[in-house]
Structures are given as structure tokens and as C-alpha cells.
């Protein structure tokens, strides 16, 4: 399935505000992150978290086409 993944901050500077990745049906958060990271090969980017539908997601959670998926670089609010 083809997923749209939102990017922010340093990841958005490197790859744009979103990217498309192709992952198998039943793919997990870790698979999505690996696919997005492959697009950034050779660049130094901080290790991110992944959010699914506006919540931090575990690496082993499965994703589906209807999910809103985002790469969350280290946050620095406040």
C-alpha cells in the first residue's frame, strides 16, 4: 500500500513536508520509519518518534491506509 507520511522540522527540511512510501499490507510503524529513512540515506537526521493518528506509536503497531502517519523529530517546545 502507498502511504503518505508527514514530516516536520529537520526531516521536512531534508525531504519536504510529506513523502510517499510503499509498504506491504500489515506493515508496522518500524517498517514505515525504515522506508522513510531510506529516502534520507547519507543525511544526518536526529532519531525520530512516529505518530499515528496524532498519538505516539510503538514500533510494532500496524498501520493502515486510513491512518495519519507522521515522523516526529525530537521536540523542543515550551
Amino acid at each position, binding site marked *: 500500500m502507498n502511504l503518505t507520511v*508527514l514530516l*516536520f*522540522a*529537520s*526531516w521536512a*527540511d*531534508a525531504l519536504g513536508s510529506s513523502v510517499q512510501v510503499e509498504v506491504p499490507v500489515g506493515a508496522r510503524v518500524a517498517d514505515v520509519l525504515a522506508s522513510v529513512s531510506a529516502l534520507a540515506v547519507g*543525511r*544526518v*537526521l*536526529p*532519531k525520530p518518534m512516529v*505518530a499515528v493518528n*496524532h*498519538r*505516539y506509536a510503538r514500533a510494532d503497531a500496524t498501520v493502515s491506509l486510513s491512518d495519519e502517519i*507522521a515522523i*516526529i*523529530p*525530537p*521536540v*523542543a*517546545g*515550551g
Partner: protein
Amino acid sequence: MRSAIVDRPLDPTVLLAEVASTASGASTLFVGTVRRVNAGREVTGIDYTAYGAMAERELAAIVAEAAARFGCEQVVVEHRIGTLTLGEASIVIAVSHARRAAAMDAQRYLIEEIKRRVPVWKREHYADGTREWVDPTRPHATAGAP
């Protein structure tokens, strides 16, 4: 309880008035401001950006947690995004509580959890003309952007 991500200047006085209650014996205000020096470098301004929908959800969750955990009368938080100049407020946290100790405990919980969890990022502008995303997981190192 109320929280928001906003793109205009913050007014601490409004938030302090919003939490006022004759059931509370203490109100606290925390104001985060843009500092002239960070990690030894001279800062001239900061761009704050957010993953808006998630930031609002996470901020509301933290406010609800603090209100329940400490028994606050009122909690109101606003986080600003956009480009801020020196001295401007990026966040205002207002708490009221019957008891002062719990008001201060809630204040500290709120700012620490917000810094840890809310998807907001800041890019500092330095006096030498460069700009960099701040990465709190790598203190004093150049962060992120290639």
C-alpha cells in the same frame, strides 16, 4: 481547563485572570521567553513550528492529567508558534489551586511534560546568520538539518 496552539503574541495577564477563582488560594504563571544566549551562542530570534492537530491533542491531554493528578481549580496553557524575537513569550502556563504547594507541583509537571511530549520544534536564528533546529537530545551539538 483550556489549552491552545496560537500564532499571535501571548498575554499572560489574560491567562492569569482566566484561572482566578475564590476557591483558590494560589495562582501561578509560568512564562517561557526567548533568551539572548543559548548553549553559548548569541540568539536573535526563534521560529516555532508545530504539528498542529497532534500538538493540540497532546497539550490538552497533559492539561487534563495535571488537573486530575493535582486537583487544580483551573489550568490554562497557550503555546505560541511563528517567528519570535528576543524576550517574547513562547508559552504561558496558568494554574490555580486551593493550596500553594499543589499549584507549584502542577506548574512544574505541566512545563516538563509539555517539553517532553508536545510536537513543537524551534529553529534558532544566530547572530552569525545561521539557523538551526534545536535538538534537546543532543545538547550543545549541532542538530538535525543536513
